[in-house]
């Protein structure tokens, strides 16, 4: 990394060139972006996403059909006679071979039809459309809270590594990394709804329209993530301050340490942070299942738990597809932003 950095006049130092506009017209910038490797990179990543999404749906389908019990049994209950179950499974096309059922599902899904829920009989698309906004709100809220917490704290830590502030924040981060989301959620519940006399309601109204409903679930997601980001950002900032030529130059020119940290090093660290956000998203979505279940939010996570309970394969497939597609898209977006933010990637090698 440091090998490609040349010491020169400040204009040529990476991190400055992309951010100082020097009268660059907007249209030219867009045109340059369109010709850049970033768009080719986007195309390639989209092509890679197809087998990933296919694999995810196929895996879910196979795994969900491995167990003897099926949706017909789950639907009719334990008292159903074998003949009733047989009739129901013929009605639901469950008597056909696995691969044929998968092909039927896939073909319909490619035409934008995710099928009907086996349990409620309603089309999967509208069910998801109703539940998805709650989960998206939750994830976005959590990410905003995470960044608002972690960026200032990481800068405070990096200002004086090993100092009392740094040590305190690091200890808190260790606690945040080690706490299970179920424990954290119940702790928040006890504090906000118990000790603080229902400052935040224990059970959400379910719709997720009231931001107060989303606060505790979002904190459940955000606090462990913030601990992770603080540690990451702090390590990166300290490394930038110690070993990168551009920070040493800026310090040698007499800029204050604080200014170099916040104006120069932090900007470069954002690039690394962006990749980490993309990578963490899959884990974050997993935690939404727990948070939604504990706080009774009617989002995708709760729907997923119900779909699993009812062996409702089409609904489960739809949810899994949306989750995986979401992760793939966000990773693609971070890759693109990455190449926009870092001129070395935009002009150099087209990422591997």
């Amino acid at each position, binding site marked *: 990394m440091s090998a490609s950095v040349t010491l020169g006049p400040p204009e040529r130092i990476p991190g400055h060139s992309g951010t100082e506009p020097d009268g660059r017209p907007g249209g030219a910038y867009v045109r340059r972006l369109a010709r850049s490797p970033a768009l080719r990179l986007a195309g390639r990543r989209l092509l890679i996403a197809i087998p990933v999404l296919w694999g995810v749906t196929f895996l879910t389908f196979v795994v969900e059909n491995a*167990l003897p019990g099926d949706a017909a049994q789950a639907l009719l209950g334990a008292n159903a006679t074998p003949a009733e179950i047989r009739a129901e499974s013929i009605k639901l096309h469950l008597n056909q071979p696995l691969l044929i059922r998968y092909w039927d599902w896939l073909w319909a899904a490619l035409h934008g039809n995710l099928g009907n829920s086996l349990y409620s009989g309603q089309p999967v698309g509208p069910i998801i459309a109703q539940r998805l906004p709650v989960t998206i709100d939750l994830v976005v809220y959590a990410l905003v809270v995470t960044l608002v917490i972690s960026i200032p704290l990481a800068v405070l830590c990096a200002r004086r590594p090993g100092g009392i502030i740094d040590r305190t924040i690091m200890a808190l981060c*260790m606690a945040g990394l*080690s706490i*299970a989301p179920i*424990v954290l959620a*119940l702790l928040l519940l006890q504090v906000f709804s118990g000790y603080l006399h229902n400052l935040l309601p224990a059970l959400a109204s379910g719709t997720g329209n009231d931001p107060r409903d989303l606060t505790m679930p979002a904190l459940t997601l955000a606090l462990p993530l913030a601990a992770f980001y603080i540690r990451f950002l702090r390590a990166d900032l300290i490394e930038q301050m*110690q070993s990168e030529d551009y920070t*040493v130059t800026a*310090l040698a020119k007499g800029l204050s340490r604080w200014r170099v940290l916040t104006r120069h090093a932090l900007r470069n660290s954002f690039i690394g942070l962006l990749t980490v956000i993309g990578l963490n998203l899959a884990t974050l979505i997993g935690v939404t299942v727990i948070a939604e279940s504990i706080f009774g939010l009617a989002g995708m996570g709760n729907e997923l738990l119900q779909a699993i309970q009812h062996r409702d394969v089409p609904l489960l497939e739809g949810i899994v597809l949306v989750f995986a597609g979401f992760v793939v898209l966000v990773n693609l977006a971070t890759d693109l932003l990455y190449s926009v933010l870092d001129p070395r990637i935009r002009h150099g090698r087209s990422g591997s």
Partner: protein
Amino acid sequence: MAAPVASLALGVPDADPAATQRRSRTRGLLRTLEITVPGAILLVLLFFCFIWPLVYPVPSPTYGSVLDASLPLWSPGHIFGTTNVGYDNMARILYGGRTTFEVAAAVQVIGLVVGGLLGVVAGYAGGIVEAVLMRVLDIFIAFPSLVLILAIVDGLGQSELHVIWALSAFSIPAVARVARAGTLRLRDQPFVVAARLSSVKAWRIISGHIVPNLMPQLFTFSLLGTGIVIILESGLDFLGYGIPDPAPSWGGMIAYGQTVMSVALSPLVVPSLFLFGTVVCLNLVGDGLRNRWGVR
């Protein structure tokens, strides 16, 4: 170059050597304590979970009298109290901890062996092998881990073994990624190139040169991953998709604690503290070893 730059950036004044030495000695002691104290706590916990029930008549975790139901903390004979059907909470903590450690260890060993092998082979072979292996692992990584694990456990049926399989689907790709990155870094190192030029066989280079050099990194990575596995497992138990019911598990105990939290906090607090303490200790040991061995 590196040393003056570091001191310039850090602004550390050159104090008298005696003070520096004293400081470095206390710092060294602190760094040792950072590893040994949580390590010792973990060992004590392991002792109580695995050996204590063999030498001391711990009550059964799944048998109790209704007469002893819902005893509070510090009751005689049941120091952590009992559940609403009279199971001894202390026994449930110990046996639940046993399951937790068994699952976590099995998952990480599977992850290390399978994931490590896949990653090293992919990194060393390159080309089509690497592309195919990494795409398959990408499927698992793009997948929200808890969703995948829930689907697998539900599909296979609930049992400790199936929880292990499901969680391995999370640990294998993670280790494989790290192993591949490490192999790519090592592949062009002079000593590996020298071995290749003197026509050492590929599997000997992998087993004799690459794997030993990757070990510290993979070991600390999976030690830190163990905490995540324990957290994921507790989440599964909590949602009712983990260790099947009468058998004790920390996550299941927390789920029970939630149902009675408006009446008594101890059924919730005790397993939560054990869960938190275990993961903190694992993370501290992992962090300490990582700093000591200088791996990232």
